[in-house]
């Protein structure tokens, strides 16, 4: 099985994930954080 980290961006030093996958990660994290914030703030405001 190949490594989950593609060697296409392998720089041998920092081993960063390819940017595309970081965008996907933070897009999902963003959806969840924004969603949770709205779902907590709205009822606290009494709406």
């Amino acid at each position: 099985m190949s490594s989950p980290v593609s060697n296409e961006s392998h720089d041998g030093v920092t081993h960063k994930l390819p940017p595309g996958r970081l965008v996907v990660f933070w897009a999902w994290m963003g959806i969840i954080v924004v969603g949770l914030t709205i779902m907590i703030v709205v009822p606290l405001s009494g709406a």
Partner: protein
Amino acid sequence: MIMRAIRDNALSIFFGAIFLLTLIGQSFAGLADTNEQNTLHGEPTVTWAQFVSSSDFMVDVSENWQSEFMQFFVFILATVWLVQRGSPESKKPGDEGVGTDQDQRVGEHSQPDSPAWARVRGWRLWLYSNSLLLVMGAVFALSWFAQSLAGLVVANEENAMHGEAPQTWVEYIAAPDFWNRTLQNWQSEFLAVGAMIAFSIYLRQRGSSESKPVGTPHHVSSEESD
């Protein structure tokens, strides 16, 4: 370049798109249902903007969110310690537990391209080793908390209409309404996960990463661990 980026991330993009479409669909169906009830009770109807910023909508969304993240939280935790022989969702019998450092490729067993916190020792390795469970657990806890807050507002609107005293948050989290909303979602998650674990021993979907390859014997739990 763009086409390749789309193909490389097709699964995430597909689920992101159908998540947004179904959430929008839920908002319009919920609005129609609310306005039907309001009309029946001789109350003024609400706009879409009023509905999506109301606790009525929030409680419906949050009760489903919490149950989904609870499902993954329990599934991730249970699959560390429990196995199901023959299921591709499971490690093979005998592999129960958190595994050796060599198996997990951490510390001195890490590879040059292992994640940075897998190559160190101490709290960073512990945190990264449990990061998926911790994030899923945190989202579960926060969305369940959101459900309790929104459910309380909705319950107290009903109480006010019937001339009853408002409930406190502590009273609400012990109330039947809170547990009815919670458990009706939890039971369906456990049913679906249990069915997936059991059915995938004998049934196959050619080409799906959720299935064993079609010709894999029934007793093989996971192609990678055998």
